């Protein structure tokens, strides 16, 4: 039985007229190509809009984590596994934990066939998966119970085979990836 069928059968995922809910959290389905077109218009020219996209996705995922945590009491391991399975189910590509270090609040997620960066392959200069980057940051913050950020260090849009997302504290990311930090996270501080 697929993960989708399991969720449907256990009533964790429901489709009603005009309303989709996953663990009581409302979701919508969007065309990945259409959203890629919007991201294309801001990715290399509007750092503030990029930063907002990331921050708001992070905030939404933190709230989702809080709501799910209250109702379903996932363990750290359950939530980490669930998060990657949900990302796959939700069409965000083949997500996989490459590193998960609970003790030091670090992680690396790789994503093959990411929909936004695949749509923008060779069209943008900078990594472009800001929505999933924010969702990962929110999911990891909920999971670690510690505020962490995410930088996309490799991206399919720039010709890489996979997108790589590094999860760590703000200060560690700033020192390890100063250029990418400036492009992907600096407005978090200014805004």
């Amino acid at each position, binding site marked *: 039985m697929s*993960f989708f069928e399991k969720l449907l059968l256990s009533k964790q995922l429901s489709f009603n007229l005009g309303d989709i809910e996953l663990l009581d959290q409302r*979701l919508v*389905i969007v065309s*990945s190509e259409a959203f890629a077109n919007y991201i294309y218009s*801001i990715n290399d020219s509007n750092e503030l809009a990029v930063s*907002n996209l990331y921050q*708001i996705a992070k905030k939404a995922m933190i709230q989702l984590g809080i709501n799910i945590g209250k109702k379903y009491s996932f363990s750290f391991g359950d939530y980490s596994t669930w998060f990657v399975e949900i990302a796959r189910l939700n069409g965000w590509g083949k997500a996989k934990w490459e590193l998960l270090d609970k003790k030091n609040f670090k992680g690396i997620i790789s994503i093959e066939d990411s929909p936004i960066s695949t749509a923008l392959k060779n069209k943008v200069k900078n990594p472009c998966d800001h929505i999933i980057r924010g969702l990962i940051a929110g999911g990891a913050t909920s999971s670690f119970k510690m505020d962490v950020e995410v930088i996309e260090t490799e991206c399919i849009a720039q010709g890489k085979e996979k997108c790589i997302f590094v999860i760590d504290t703000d200060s560690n990311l700033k020192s390890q990836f100063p250029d990418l930090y400036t492009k992907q996270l600096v407005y978090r501080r200014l805004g």
Partner: protein
Amino acid sequence: MSFLEKLMLSKQIKFEDGQTEILKQRVIFVPSDFLGEYTFEILREPELVKLIYFTLKQGVNNFGEQIMRTYGSTITDYSKLLRDLSDLAGWGKTTYESLNIEQGSATLIIENSPVSSYLKGRVNLPCDHISRGVIAGIASIALKKDLDVLEIECIATGNKACKMVLDSKDKLKSNFPRFYKMQFGSE
């Protein structure tokens, strides 16, 4: 049988490893709170409102063309299919209050719209710019005319449902000058 069940039985909805497709078009699921909060953020910047509207309008061209080519034998079938798709995709319950295919105009009522329900009481202007852009793009493809959409009633501002008017830009401008200025600026 629900539209979802029909799609599942006919294998027109696919959840393969990391790739979700509906009617052979790649889609993603996102939390509606994220789109609501992002909409709230861009309302401060009219240029971003226009940008998201026009990039989504253009971005669904391919989606609309593919669906029309594959599944929409007539415009009426296509209109029904799009309404069912919108309902399935969680964008609220859509009905056509009016639909004039020859003139390329329509009025759509959307109940339980996710973005405006999320922003209810937080904004004082219609806010479903993502839906507006998607509807405008899909309808332009279907009716082979450059059409645009204004939201003239919105759940977020206290209406029971959202009301979207589809028409040419000129007609929207003359029929709803106040909403036109709010949603397209002074162009």
